């Protein structure tokens, strides 16, 4: 594949560009492939969005090599007045805080999808794992990931809110 040089890009812009690209792939795949693939891109997009913010726009260093950063980013974001305004909450700081807090449990689930968090005995969207209670090795492509896409309204709503939040953050020039 041809490498497309887009000019003098720093680490911050590069992480953000890749997060937006991961997000675009997620949107193209959604509903058309096994759930593991869309979750994989969701985990990658959120991690790279957080890493974009972990690198100074004028900094010379890449982000630290961690996958566990999405929740911490949201904890910091909820106290940012300009993000609050851009996302339509204006001066309603407590409402924005509650909105972010309500999503942290699912953000944590997304964060733990990274293979180094899941290990060999928890579901992750990339590699097979051992389901210890069932003594079965499972492949991500054959797993339903009900903890993210069940039929209950509460979970559907939270995942939709995370989808909307990440999409909006990626549009902002954060």
């Amino acid at each position, binding site marked *: 594949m041809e490498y497309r040089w887009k000019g003098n890009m720093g680490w911050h812009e590069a992480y953000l560009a890749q997060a937006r690209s991961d997000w675009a792939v997620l949107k193209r795949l959604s509903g058309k492939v096994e759930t593991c693939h869309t979750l994989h891109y969701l985990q990658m997009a959120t991690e790279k969005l957080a890493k974009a913010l*972990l690198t100074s726009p004028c900094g010379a260093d890449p982000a630290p090599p961690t996958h*566990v950063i999405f929740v911490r980013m949201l904890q910091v974001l909820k106290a940012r007045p300009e993000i609050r305004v851009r996302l339509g909450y204006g001066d309603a700081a407590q409402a924005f805080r509650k909105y972010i807090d309500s999503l942290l449990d699912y953000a944590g689930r997304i964060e733990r999808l990274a293979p180094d968090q899941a290990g060999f005995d928890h579901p992750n969207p990339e590699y097979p794992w051992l389901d210890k209670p069932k003594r079965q090795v499972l492949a991500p492509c054959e797993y339903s990931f009900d903890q993210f896409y069940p039929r209950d309204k509460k979970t559907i709503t939270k995942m939709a809110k995370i989808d909307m939040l990440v999409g909006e953050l990626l549009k902002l020039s954060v």
Partner: protein
Amino acid sequence: MAVGQKNPEVERQAKYLAADNRQVEPDITKVYWFPDDNEVRLLEITEIVPLTSDGEVHPFYFRASPIDDLPLPTAVAMIRAEEFGKLKLPDQWGAWDDGIPLEG
């Protein structure tokens, strides 16, 4: 103004953000400001974040947003109280003793 600080706008924005953040998130128990002339650097103490895994403070960076009364870029990190003074600070932030506690 902090000793050696030349740009009063940095201190104003630091105090504004510290007060705003503590109001939004009551679990932030203390805010320390590390003075710099070009960037607002805040370290917030809270139990809502997990312990840092690699022994370093990793701030999140935000661009200036003059329209939101934030004319300077900001770097803000959250750590647990027991990590204060023990983690490695970002380059250019100085020493732990340089942190000035800001009242909410």
